């Protein structure tokens, strides 16, 4: 298979993937995109191995590295602004506070992951790292920080989506559940 055909098939797969995601949102079935993404990854992996031309070379990898660096910087700045804007609007809707926390944790997770992978590749290139055990022994503190951040993220997410301390729509009326910080919703409860 040549590169042109591969790129065409890749485009078709991306279109089908976006279609499946749109379908999953309209059907409220979130299993569809998970299966679709997994299937697309497998198909793309198989197709990549059938291409008899060079798909990417050292110039592409160098550009990809630069692109990733800029993307992370832009994402970090935008998220930081977003977090502060949401925090300033927290008084209007307490939900903004929770969203800003999630965004802040996600940004931290991205930065830490990037830093970890960068350092891992740097050490690997210098042949200072041989196995996972050695990595864990050397960088156990990073694993601990990542674990704590992941736990904090899970707890804050669960708190946001658990429905605890919120207003529930029951029998056509808004019922207080726990101690909600927000005022009773003004929308009609059906």
């Amino acid at each position, binding site marked *: 298979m040549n590169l042109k055909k591969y790129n065409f098939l890749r485009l078709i797969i991306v279109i089908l993937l976006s279609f499946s995601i749109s379908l999953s949102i309209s059907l409220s079935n979130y299993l569809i995109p998970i299966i679709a993404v997994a299937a697309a990854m497998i198909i793309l992996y198989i197709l990549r191995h059938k291409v008899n*031309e*060079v798909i*990417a*070379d*050292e*110039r*592409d990898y160098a550009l990809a590295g630069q692109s990733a660096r800029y993307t992370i910087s832009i994402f970090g700045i935008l998220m930081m602004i977003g977090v502060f804007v949401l925090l300033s609007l927290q008084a209007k809707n307490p939900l903004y506070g929770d969203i800003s926390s999630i965004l802040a944790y996600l940004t931290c997770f991205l930065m830490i992951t990037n830093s970890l992978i960068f350092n891992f590749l740097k050490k690997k290139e210098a042949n200072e790292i041989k196995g996972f055990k050695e990595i864990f022994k050397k960088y156990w503190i990073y694993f601990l920080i990542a674990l704590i951040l992941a736990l904090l993220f899970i707890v804050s997410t669960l708190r946001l989506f658990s429905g605890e301390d919120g207003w529930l729509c029951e029998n056509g009326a808004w019922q207080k559940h726990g101690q909600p910080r927000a005022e009773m919703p003004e929308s009609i409860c059906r």
Partner: protein
Amino acid sequence: MTNIIKELRARHNLTQEELARLAGVRRETILFLEAGKYNPSLKLAHDVARILKTNIDELFIFNDSDSPCQK
């Protein structure tokens, strides 16, 4: 930094596509390389030089201004 890849490629009757295939890179990389818009890795420079039956020193012409140690 300039280079004589285009001249040597023509002398060996190779197209950009063929040189790219032999060097294991994409045609665009050869295009950028010939135009002096891309600094290749030492391995790619060596591979291209080997394909064109020359050496890196002859293939790439370094100007004094390219090297900070000359200043």
